[in-house]
């Protein structure tokens, strides 16, 4: 239909065929859209918008800049390296007075405190008498709080004077700025996020590998059994799936703790001494065991549904063509289960990356994951921007793995069940 003018095909009543087709399809399209609209709206409101805002908050924080207009102005006219002179202190005095009036010293101070610990009270205490400052302001302010002299505080205020900032991403990577604004690693005793991110990644990969290793034979057995027996076994697989996560985690605690069932059994069998019980809980082992168990169905189900569709004739064909049973498995059966392995593995990996309750309960000190940090910043320190930056990094890692998966296996081949 390249030459539309000479080759125009029309319907019986003379309308152009394409227009008639479009009109008849439009109704169907509208109906389809209306059908998905509620879900789309729901996802938009409950998922996309909050995640977008979370990402936005990781690099946008105006709690200082909106409360300190004079300082924002001063920083914009005085480039980095300018002397902190009387005019700077005058701006500070004006802003502190404004903060007192608006009761916003705590809010502004909190933002600077993220960067330079111990400065929140600097703001709140100085702001208390801010309406009484007289020039020269530098002297007046330093008389109340000597810490205003600290170049680090000024560097932090300059950095926070723009609501758009990468400070939280720096913090999320155990980085900070020194007095001159250069990016440097944080003090050794404070570096935690990269280490935890690495551990989260390792733990997730270990758990994923373990789930696949344990789930594969079970899924294979399920797929090769007659339907009735398979369903019975399937219920056993799904039973823990239907139980509350907390119940399952607690069950593992009962089993694994040092006075728990497993240790009791080992002591009773005489395999270990009563005072040498094995620590299987409140450490990495506990996290791996409990999470592998909890996430196992997520590998078994996609694997099973893929294996179910592979007729036995493929392996038979391979065997008849001269392949040993191992070769037939490796070269013919295994590649065909890849969509299931990929889907199950990716699912478990993504879930494991974000897991939070189980490591919190059975993880102890060295079974912690990055999501426990995110939760801490959301709930305890209330540094939402840092929590957002950490969450954004987690999201990025998951997306990277998604991308690798797409490159290696192809997302269209994913089969979730």
């Amino acid at each position, binding site marked *: 239909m390249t030459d539309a003018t000479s080759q125009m095909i029309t319907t019986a009543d003379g309308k152009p065929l394409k227009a008639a087709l479009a009109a008849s399809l439009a109704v169907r399209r509208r109906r389809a859209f209306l059908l998905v609209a509620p879900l789309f709206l729901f996802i938009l*409101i*409950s998922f996309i*918008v*909050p995640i977008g*805002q*979370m990402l*936005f*908050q990781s690099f*946008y924080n*105006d709690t200082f800049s909106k409360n300190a207009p004079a300082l924002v102005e001063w920083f914009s006219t005085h480039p980095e390296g300018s002397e902190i002179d009387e005019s700077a202190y005058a701006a500070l005095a004006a802003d502190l007075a404004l903060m007192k009036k*608006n*009761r*916003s*010293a*705590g*809010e502004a*101070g*909190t933002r600077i*405190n*993220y960067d330079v*610990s*111990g*400065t*929140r*009270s600097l703001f*709140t205490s100085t702001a208390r008498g801010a309406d009484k400052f007289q020039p020269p302001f530098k002297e007046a302010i330093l008389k109340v709080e000597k810490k205003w002299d600290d170049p680090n505080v000024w560097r932090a205020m300059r950095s926070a004077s723009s609501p758009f900032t990468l400070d939280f991403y720096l913090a999320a990577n155990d980085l900070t700025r020194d007095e001159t604004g250069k990016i440097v690693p*944080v003090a050794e*005793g*404070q*570096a*935690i996020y990269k*280490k*935890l991110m690495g*551990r989260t990644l390792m733990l997730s990969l270990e758990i994923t590998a373990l789930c696949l290793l344990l789930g594969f034979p079970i899924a294979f057995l399920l797929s090769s059994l007659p339907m009735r027996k398979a369903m019975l076994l399937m219920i056993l697989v799904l039973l823990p799936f239907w139980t509350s996560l907390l119940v399952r985690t607690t069950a593992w605690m009962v089993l694994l*703790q*040092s*006075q*728990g069932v497993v240790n009791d059994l080992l002591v009773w069998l005489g395999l270990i001494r009563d005072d040498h019980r094995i620590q299987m809980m*409140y450490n990495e082992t506990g996290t791996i065991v409990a999470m592998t168990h909890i996430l196992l169905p997520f590998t078994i189900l996609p694997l099973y549904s893929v294996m179910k569709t592979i007729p036995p004739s493929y392996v038979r064909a391979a065997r008849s063509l001269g392949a040993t049973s191992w070769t037939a498995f490796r070269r013919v059966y295994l590649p065909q289960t890849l969509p299931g392995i990929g889907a199950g593995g990716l699912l478990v990996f993504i879930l494991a990356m974000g897991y939070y309750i189980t490591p*919190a*309960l059975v993880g*102890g*000190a*060295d079974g*912690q994951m990055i999501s426990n*940090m995110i939760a*801490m*910043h959301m*709930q*305890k*320190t*209330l*540094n939402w921007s*840092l929590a957002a930056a950490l969450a954004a990094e987690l999201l990025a890692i998951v997306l990277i793995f998604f991308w690798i998966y797409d490159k290696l296996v192809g997302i269209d081949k994913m089969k979730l069940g």
Partner: protein
Amino acid sequence: MKKLLILTTALVATGYAASAQELNIVSWGGSYTVSQVEAYHKPFTAMTGVKINSIDADNPATPLKAQVEAGNVSIDLADIELSDAIRLCDEGLLEPIDPAMLPPAPDGTPATEDFVPGAIQDCAVANIVWGTVVAYDKTKFPGNEPSTLADFFDTTKYPGKRGLLKTAKRTMEMALVADGVAPDKVYEVLGTDEGVARAFKKLDSIKKDIVWWEAGAQPPQLLADGEVVMTTGYNGRFFAAEVGEGKPFGTIWDGEYMDYDLWAIPKGAPHLEDAKKFLAFSTDTQRLADQAKYIAYGPARKSSNALIGMYKDGKTEMAPYMPTNPENMKNPIWTDPTFWADHDAELAEKFNAWLAS
């Protein structure tokens, strides 16, 4: 943009609407909320006819902050921690409280003198004082029961696993006090790098024996399961296990960490007048004493101590279990919310880095 996020959070966190002749009160849930409902809510409703919706939250400060920032407030009153009370007050998210509205003690002592020090804040009034204490399994130390915080860190004399709260706050202060720092100097020391190192060193000495807990329900459970022989925990929870369930627990009243829970009214509360009325009512001498019948947290008024009677079982004298009992308040660590507002993030990071090392 931030408004929007807060709005959605607020919508998800608390999906209820405000209407006339009722109060929406957010608290921590569990037996603690039950004690408030029995001691405050029911008598208040009986007296005024105002219906009270009791809402549970993991930390009531979180929905409060979200709602006020979104400008869509449905909470009238929230039970919050001291550090949050000060922080939210500084940020202008709370209604200021005039101490004059609080009723005097029965003997005429004005409220400002009747409350324990620090209980009346600019924007919040304490109702209870609670302690983070060390409890131990009596059966594990027959004839040689530990009695000081230093004993907690002495695994040679008192062998066995220890339960400790997995946060910098409370744990680090207790480590310093056990190491010999005077409770009133603890924040001065903790404010220095040397002090932080000292706290970690003390913790290092028992690190391999520590079982970390996070939720308040865990310590009595760990103790009962025999997972630990000694653990820090909230005194009300240990009381419930010891008196309520008859567990052989003992409590060390040395270097206990004192905290308040306070009532605060958010800016823009839909029923401001009723909320104030409730606040004054629930913090009077009798009401605070009444609450002690249901939970072992100390009343924030001195005058209430005399009125504390029996536990609801009718045979247990509550006074020995009260953190505010003078017998128990010999060496307490009083929390410093200003210090924690300044150092929470930094020490949390250092603490987690120490944990992971």
